[in-house]
């Protein structure tokens, strides 16, 4: 009886799918890019000593606040090492037993890896440290997106199939 209406039904379900995709895309964009106000602390000057040796930085994890003026005093205790910071135009090199210093303003919130920039041996590509500037918003956004993913996964599955027969 509904046969003459089939093209209309198909068209309507296609539009419905497009709408669903649009809603999901908007939700994803909002979660990933919506500006979140961060309670700002008064920027301070921070002096951080980092030692490099045996394919590791010490300390390997550093936390600063957005806006801090960070001075890195970089020392190598074995061979020549470098320290290159992702996301910032910042690089230091230190000869064995010597130090090098440089400052930068931590004006980009987030998590940034720093890596050895001078080939120092087999594990050189994995000689990595971590700088955290303020809260890790991308991780929080990722978790919210994960929750949305669960909702989408459940919502997009609207058929009930008898399981357990395989």
């Amino acid at each position, binding site marked *: 009886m509904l046969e003459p209406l089939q093209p209309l039904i198909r068209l309507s379900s296609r539009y419905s799918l497009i709408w669903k995709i649009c809603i999901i895309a908007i939700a994803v964009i909002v979660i990933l890019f919506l500006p979140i106000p961060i309670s700002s602390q008064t920027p301070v000057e921070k002096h951080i000593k980092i030692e490099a040796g045996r394919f590791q930085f010490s300390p390997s994890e550093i936390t600063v606040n957005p806006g801090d003026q960070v001075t890195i005093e970089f020392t190598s205790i074995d061979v020549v090492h470098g320290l290159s910071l992702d996301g910032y135009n910042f690089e230091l090199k230190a000869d064995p037993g010597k130090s090098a210093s440089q400052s930068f303003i931590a004006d980009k919130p987030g998590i940034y890896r720093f890596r050895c920039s001078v080939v120092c041996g087999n594990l*050189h590509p994995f000689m990595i440290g971590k700088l955290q500037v303020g809260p890790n918003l991308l991780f929080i956004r990722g978790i919210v997106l994960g929750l949305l993913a669960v909702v989408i*996964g459940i919502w*997009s599955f609207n058929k009930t199939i008898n399981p357990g027969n*395989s």
Partner: protein
Amino acid sequence: MTRISLTQFPRVMNLFRSRWPQFILRAITLAGFIFTILAGLFGSVVGSHNVAIIFVWIAWWTALKLFFIPFGGRSWCSICPIPMPGEWLQNGGILEPRGKGFGLGKRWPKVLRGTWLQASGFLLVGLFGAVTLTSAKVTAIVLLSIIILAIILSLIFERRSFCNYLCPIGGFTGLYAQVGPVELRVKDIDICAQHTEKTCYDACPWGQYPLALKSSANCGLCMECLRVCPSDNLAINLRPWGSDLGTNTKHGLDEAFLGLVMVASVLVDSAVFIGPWGKLKLAAYNIGSTEWFVYVAIFLTFGLIILPGLFGGSTWLSNRFGKLKTSFRKALAYYSQVLVPLGLMGWIAFTISFAFVKFAYVLPVISDPLGLGWNLLGTTGNAGVGQSTSFSLLLQVLILSVGMVWSTRVARRISESMKQAIPLIVFSGAFTVSLLWLLIG
């Protein structure tokens, strides 16, 4: 579900039917394989200056996870050079069909069948990964050992026993090929049922009977069945992603083990290679030291006890919440389907985290493949340190979210009710958050 047969197009069909195009591609990969071994043995000891490290662990390993598996299932296996020499010996020629050459042709022992050895091999690669991934010489020795082993096994056992039961990469690609968008299937079941000779089974190096194929896990897309079918009854289809997962496909306990090894390995590799913990890296690298044994103990405890324990707990709950109760072993195998999209997306996110940073090494190493100071393309020495960009970080978040959507859908699809799916979704969520933290935390 919708399928598009690629073999309906005569030109594509001719391309698959002829052994030449595939042979040319395999000859190129074999030449590259041999060159990689030679470069590893005799080239620079500096990994980032040696083609063995950059091509195997940056270019090929990345291409496998970002291109071959997600868009071609086991398509890499169809051009893999490793079984080639052994197969030539088995076939008594380079372009010959199966089985007229040398070899004892014994059947692989029943007790060793399944993906158990492949999963164990993958675990072993993980235990020695920090050395294999960073030493060109070790990479070359591993590749050489693998090809020699494949040749020896092809002279003792029938067909591609090495690929089917031992190759860790075969296990990896086979597991995730189940969700790939390519499949080989028969066109008309009745035609196959009436054909008594089974030429396709005789010709298949993988020992598969196409009529019985319900999963693409063990089909290496070699096209041999398609070449010998007298009724032109085989097709290569494009299909929706995830087609082999559901209530009607068979999944064994070995697949559950393989899936768990894969998700455990991606977590451990992310901690070792992407994390900021120098002591962990050194422990993974200093093979034979006390620290390394501690690392091995932690890795194996996590991969063989803690993670399977958590997944086993989820499975037990899901089984308990269902109306149709089944044995725990069967439930474990059945619900392990959730691990497939979860693991694949996890590996893709992990790959993006390091490949995008290290990809700058590829051009310089092509220009100076042995690290001997050549400058064939004028790109030697141009590699920067490399850094993860905000784009690659966002991409990792999105890929992990896709994995979460996908595994949730699979959990829902294979469960009777929402209540039954929840423990599996919680496990998937815990894995995703852990990997997210390791990669961008």
